């Protein structure tokens, strides 16, 4: 690719990008949020036509749009945002557009067999080809996307953050498949925010910054992490978690939140804990362990039995309106589905939960739009949302910047308690450090924070106190300083046995202590889906002083 330019209304997303990929190599693409990685990929896959520049294949210029043309040239793509059709089955999704068929009649048996084979190759023989995709977990959807890319016999496979929704051992599986492909001469373009993955699988690296190529063909194995980060961000990010106040500081503070015996049959049981003012409490656990559900239940977004006390007052459940009025805020896990009005300006997304602050008189609901815009602008700047125009529709922001807008919503108003579910998903290194500092500052101002994160280092680094959740129960509670990563990993999986021959491996077994009524564990266990959501070897990177940003959420953009 040479001199690629892509212009969107108001943004030059790509501004002369060069990229060169050799047969049989894994070429990594790195860059901050909004650097233009996904856009570049979409040009390669024919989803966008470039405004300028040319794409050469085997030395001769080609046109890749529409997507069928790119496919014709042997380019297959796994997109960053999930591009599956919920209403269709797994095998129908895999072969969508190139179904095995005779006279227009789809040959379902053949498709199912081929799909089962592809899924088996990816180590997920347990996904049944006839299952409806809408019923799959995000991780399984990602597997289906990969199977789809493999179903084209391609020369170049592009993977835009394929590991986003995957746990550690599934990533290993993925790498096995990639090596398999490259050994057959297939080229792979690999995008990820996890630098240690790049080291493991990558051959060469191209770095994008602000729509321009800043480095080409670096060696993936040998280039120092610091150099790569500097290339991406344009500065040396000294990444540190903000300092914690001493352990005893919280002791005297009042309790902001007390949760007693919170139970949702089949999902979680008997959850009790408390959060003091100024304290950050982290919830660690496996995917599917029920942390998001606990947080949503506290917020009133789902009904559960038990008692939630906020600031000394009992919160009657079942109403998010009441929770917000009483001073809670939730930054949900899936920003696209649960948080954002994609077509609306950033400003309106930020102020959505605090509208009554800009009304006068309040009973009339008359909006002071100038005050609203001013506040939104201030927050957008504070969060460094790029491009810095609060009137842009959120849809046009890159994934990481969208995430910042979600957080901004709860910074607009004085909260007593913030529930942050995977708050840094897809946020790049620089902004992440600022976010950590911000959360800590909020806590220092007296807010209680509950932090759910699948990144153990993040929980350990940012939280004051950590609760380990397993199969819907809190199994351990300790100050963060008293824990390290391996200890946490042991805790979340303490009763795990190796289940029968499934690659997903470490599924949570049926714990002996589990009561008969609890099906959460059984569900996760027998499906072999309760997998580790964190990178157990990211700790080895700690020496560089750079935290590896977790990969972007599945429901990005």
């Amino acid at each position: 690719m040479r001199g690629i330019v892509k212009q969107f209304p108001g943004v030059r997303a790509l501004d002369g990008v060069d990229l060169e990929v050799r047969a049989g190599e894994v070429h990594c693409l790195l860059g901050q949020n909004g650097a233009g990685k996904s856009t570049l990929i979409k040009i390669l896959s024919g989803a966008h036509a470039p405004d300028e520049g040319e794409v050469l294949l085997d030395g001769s210029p080609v046109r890749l749009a529409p997507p069928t043309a790119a496919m014709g040239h042997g380019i297959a793509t796994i997109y960053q945002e999930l591009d599956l059709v919920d209403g269709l089955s797994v095998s129908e999704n895999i072969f969508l557009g190139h179904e095995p068929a005779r006279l227009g009649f789809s040959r379902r048996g053949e498709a199912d067999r081929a799909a089962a084979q592809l899924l088996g190759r990816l180590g997920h023989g347990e996904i049944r080809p006839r299952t409806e995709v809408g019923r799959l977990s995000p991780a399984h959807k990602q597997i289906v996307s990969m199977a789809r890319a493999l179903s084209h016999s391609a020369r170049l496979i592009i993977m835009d953050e394929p590991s986003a929704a995957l746990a550690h051992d599934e990533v290993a599986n993925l790498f096995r498949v990639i090596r398999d492909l490259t050994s057959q001469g297939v080229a792979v373009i690999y995008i990820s925010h996890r630098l240690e993955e790049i080291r493991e699988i990558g051959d060469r690296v191209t770095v994008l910054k602000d729509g321009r190529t800043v480095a080409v063909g670096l060696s993936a194995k040998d280039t120092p992490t610091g150099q790569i980060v500097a290339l991406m961000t344009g500065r040396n990010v000294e990444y540190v978690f903000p300092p914690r106040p001493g352990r005893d500081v919280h002791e005297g503070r009042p309790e902001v939140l007390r949760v007693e015996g919170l139970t949702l049959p089949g999902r979680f049981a008997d959850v009790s804990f408390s959060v003091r003012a100024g304290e950050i409490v982290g919830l660690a656990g496996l995917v599917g362990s029920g942390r998001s559900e606990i947080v949503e239940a506290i917020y009133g977004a789902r009904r559960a039995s038990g008692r939630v006390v906020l600031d000394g007052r009992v919160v009657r459940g079942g109403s998010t309106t009441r929770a917000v009025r009483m001073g809670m805020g939730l930054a949900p896990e899936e920003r696209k589905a649960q948080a954002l009005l994609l077509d609306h300006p950033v400003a309106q997304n930020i102020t959505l939960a605090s509208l009554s602050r800009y009304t006068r008189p309040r009973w009339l609901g008359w909006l002071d739009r100038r005050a609203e815009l001013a506040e939104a602008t201030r927050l957008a700047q504070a969060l460094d949302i790029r491009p810095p125009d609060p009137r842009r529709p959120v849809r046009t922001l890159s994934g990481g910047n969208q995430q910042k807008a979600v957080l901004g919503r709860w910074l607009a108003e004085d909260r007593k308690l913030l529930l942050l579910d995977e708050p840094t998903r897809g946020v790049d290194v620089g902004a992440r450090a600022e976010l950590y500092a911000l959360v800590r500052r909020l806590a220092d101002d007296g807010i209680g924070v509950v932090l759910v994160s699948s990144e153990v280092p993040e929980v350990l680094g940012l939280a004051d106190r950590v609760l380990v959740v397993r199969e819907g129960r809190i199994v351990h509670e300790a100050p963060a300083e008293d824990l390290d990563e391996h200890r946490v990993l042991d805790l979340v999986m303490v009763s795990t046995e190796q289940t029968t021959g499934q690659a997903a491996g470490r599924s949570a077994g049926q714990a002996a202590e589990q009561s008969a009524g609890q099906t959460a564990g059984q569900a996760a266990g027998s499906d072999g889906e309760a997998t580790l959501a964190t990178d157990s070897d990211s700790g080895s990177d700690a020496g560089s002083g750079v935290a590896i940003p977790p990969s972007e959420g599945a429901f990005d953009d």
Partner: protein
Amino acid sequence: MIEVDQAAQAGPRVAAGPGGRFGRLGEVRHLGLVAALVLLAIVGLVTRPENFATSSNLVSILALASTIGVITVGMTFVIIGGGIDLSVGALMALASVWATTLATQSYGPIVMIVCAVLVGTGAGLLNGILIAYGRMVPFIATLAMMVAGRGLAQRMSNQRTQLVQPDNSLIVDLSTTRLLGLPLLVYVFALVVLIGWVVLNRTTFGRRTYAVGGNPEAARLAGIDVRKHTLMLYALSGLCCGIAAVLIMARTTTGSSTHGDLYELDAIAAVIIGGTLLSGGRGTIIGSILGLLIFTVITNLFILNGLNTADQLVAKGAIIVIAVLLQRRSLRTHT
């Protein structure tokens, strides 16, 4: 194993909630509709024991359902494909008028049938072109077609009702000739439903329709020509209108610009009661046909019981609400 699925499905991803209820559980999803139909049948048996369950009454119900039924099949495709077609009633009228002009009739019944089908398909294609290539919102494009179609039908017929000529009575035979006790047009209806079901469930065209309606962006990236597909969906709906025109000609022995008045509303309502989402991507032919039968049986019950218009309307509104709430309930219980 089943429990496992259910547990996973009731999951926290609220948005994914409704998704789970379709798919594997097979025909259970239509249980509510079937229950509503059974309930209506019981009402029929209780209020008119001597009339309701007679074979001639059941034949009459099927014959009444046939015309809209054919249209409903096409509408199901369009709505699953993420669109809507308001022009169906008007296209049926236009096709019936065109096929019964004296000029057309002089070529005999086969040409009349071909003419009706071609007119329907052609107008459907025009809908498709406006929507897929003219990028008009389906609601507006087909509304325009509905208005213009009726106008054209009126012009062409001079606002008169056009009789099928005696030499072309082959067409009328569709409604008067019976095979195993059922008029031929019921077989036409059944055939259209069967073909519709096969196409939707067993061909690439049908499966792609779900993709085009459920996630057009994904469909496009998968190399499906979304525009062409959309075009074909509206042509298909037009084709169904053409077939329905033949049936209405058979039943009424006429072509008229007033045929099919408000059929669009009935067809859409049947499709939606049948569980197809107005936003596209999900739905079944069987559900639509069950939905339609509910409406037809309601009408039949009213006819048998001789309710006056006003009471009928009130009762019909109430029954729709009850049927839908029943269906919801069955869905909630069974998944």
